[in-house]
């Protein structure tokens, strides 16, 4: 096993799958000669050639549309968005064509739409977004949010092989900050399966993406205080792993939801609703959400820090829940 960063794990997954499966190709802005704004596809142009590593015009509707069309003819396109924020410019193709095609007429759309998401790097309102909520109410889509290099690779391999459209949200804060041993070979992390990142008995934290790490830190902070925290890393938002969410809440009776999307209307609502319907009698405390305030993502470091959840904010909520 090699030590890979989160970014390298994504690169390795695409590299291995492109080597294995000639149907896979990548299109996006500056993915070729430049290797992508974050260098995720570095070296791909030389290795796979311009027919499989396609620099497109600045046209999110165009390139996502092209990915859809190619997928209907047997290909497995990966559409890179330079920043995930630009997904808003191709929104219509995703929600109205890709998501509904199989249901309407049987045309399956096995595409991956991937790009750097999330805040913490002072990118400002248009380079820091968490767009998952745009798509949570769109049947036909899958949304994947890896938190670790191992899952980033396994989920990317699963996403490319998935018969349906997958939105793959890469957290740019983790790209180079997170390293771990990643199996060299071929493996997939099943889409739709959450993972217990830390086992515990008193409080369940249900989270995903970069917030998994903040939650794990919070768990470490409160452990000496005698509070045992279980951290559930959802890994997939759509479809959501209801069973594991309910399992951990039934076990602890206390649910804390943490996400980087702003609080109102964020994915936490769906999670809370699942719990409040299906684990109601197991709850010993209110369901609590820790999430940013309802504002755009501000740019200046002190503002962004104030905006984002962090271990101490999460630890506070854990303490309050445990004491409830």
């Amino acid at each position: 096993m090699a030590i890979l960063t989160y970014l390298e794990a994504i690169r390795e997954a695409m590299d291995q799958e492109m080597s294995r499966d000639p149907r896979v190709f990548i299109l996006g802005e500056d993915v070729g000669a430049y290797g992508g704004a974050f260098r995720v596809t570095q070296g791909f142009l030389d290795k796979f050639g311009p027919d499989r590593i396609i620099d497109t015009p600045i046209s999110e509707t165009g390139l996502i549309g092209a990915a859809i069309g190619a997928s209907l003819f047997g290909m497995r396109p990966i559409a890179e968005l330079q920043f995930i924020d630009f997904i808003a410019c191709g929104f219509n193709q995703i929600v109205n064509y890709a998501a509904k095609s199989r249901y309407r007429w049987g045309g399956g759309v096995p595409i991956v739409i991937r790009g750097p998401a999330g805040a913490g790097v002072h990118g400002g309102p248009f380079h820091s977004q968490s767009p998952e909520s745009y798509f949570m109410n769109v049947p036909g889509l899958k949304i994947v949010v890896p938190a670790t290099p191992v899952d980033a690779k396994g989920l990317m391999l699963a996403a490319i092989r998935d018969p349906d459209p997958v939105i793959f949200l890469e957290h740019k804060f983790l790209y180079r900050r997170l390293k771990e041993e990643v199996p060299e070979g071929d493996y997939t992390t099943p889409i739709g399966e959450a993972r217990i990142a830390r086992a515990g008995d008193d409080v369940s934290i249900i989270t995903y993406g970069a917030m998994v790490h903040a939650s794990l830190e919070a768990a470490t902070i409160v452990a000496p205080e005698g509070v045992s925290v279980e951290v559930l890393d959802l890994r997939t938002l759509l479809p959501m792993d209801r069973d594991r969410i309910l399992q951990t809440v039934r076990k602890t009776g206390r649910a804390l939801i943490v996400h980087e999307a702003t609080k109102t209307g964020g994915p936490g609502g769906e999670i809370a609703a699942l719990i409040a319907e299906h684990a109601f009698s197991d709850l010993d405390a209110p369901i609590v959400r820790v999430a940013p305030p309802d504002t755009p993502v501000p740019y200046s470091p002190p503002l962004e820090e104030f905006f984002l959840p962090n271990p101490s904010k999460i630890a506070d909520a854990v303490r309050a829940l445990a004491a409830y």
Partner: protein
Amino acid sequence: MTSGKPPADRLTRDQLIELYYLLKLNRGLEEKLSNLYRQGKVVGGLYRSLGQEACSIGSAYALERGDIFTPLIRNLGAVLVRGGSPHDIFCQYMAKADSPTRGRDLNLHFGWLSPEGSMLSVISMLGDMIPILTGAVMAERMNGRRTVALTWIGDGGTSTGAFHEGLNLACVQKAPLVLIVENNGWAYSTPTARQTANTRFVDRAKAYGCFGEQVDGNDVLAVYDVTRTAIQRARQGLGPTLIEALTMRMKGHAEHDDMKYVPQEQVIMWARRDPIALFEKFLLDNGVLAGDLEAIDARAEDELVSELASAEASPMPLGPTARSDVYFGSTADDPTPKIVQEFKSARGLS
């Protein structure tokens, strides 16, 4: 830009007759749909292509085995040319269980994927099919196939961002795409002069760096010629062609629309240029046909009658079928709350 002997000269007598048959089938089918609409049997709106049939039939007739196309709402004729059955179209409009979409989507919103040639299902959002078809033929090219894609866009649809992003991408990729701008003068109630400051849509070709042609959209052979040439160019790897077909929408936007907003003179002027009447005259003047038109009309009518009968016989879909196939091989969860299911089973209710 077409040069030399026009392709239509190479059409056999049978092919000319087939074209005539298809035009009649197209119009006859829509007339039957209008009757069904008046009888309240059409679920939703009905969009006619009256007066524009040549744009769809002349162009689609130039496609070859394996080629791809996507009809917009007024390209019903193209569906017939490419082997779509009147039965399927009737079923779509009546939302029947036997419709290609099993009642899930309406009118021409269906399609098929086949080595013989594919029809990609359109969606309502205008312009979206242009990048999608571009990707489709890029994929075919990657797989060493010389497949060409054909689609249409209205004068109004050219104003969408998807039109621009799609055509620009197709051109820079030299994708084998043929795009027909069906300029019928109106986008719903909006005349082309309020749609764009330059209503000569063929002028767009130069901006994008592709071939451009303008054609009389009511002359089925002219449409065939220009499309055929564009398809051959595309297949040779020379890139897209934007064809502006000049025609007129002779009915309202949809059946409910009396199009009061259209100047009478415009309608009268174009009525004199009905594409089927024009082609009929051509066939008679050139001795392709003599008195045997009625026979062809009758054949079209017979086909339509039997196809409609079987379509009318089709049942409506069953509600519970609505949950399948959102994702591959899966059925959406029953949204009935768990406590309701428990409550009912506890009381022996279903």
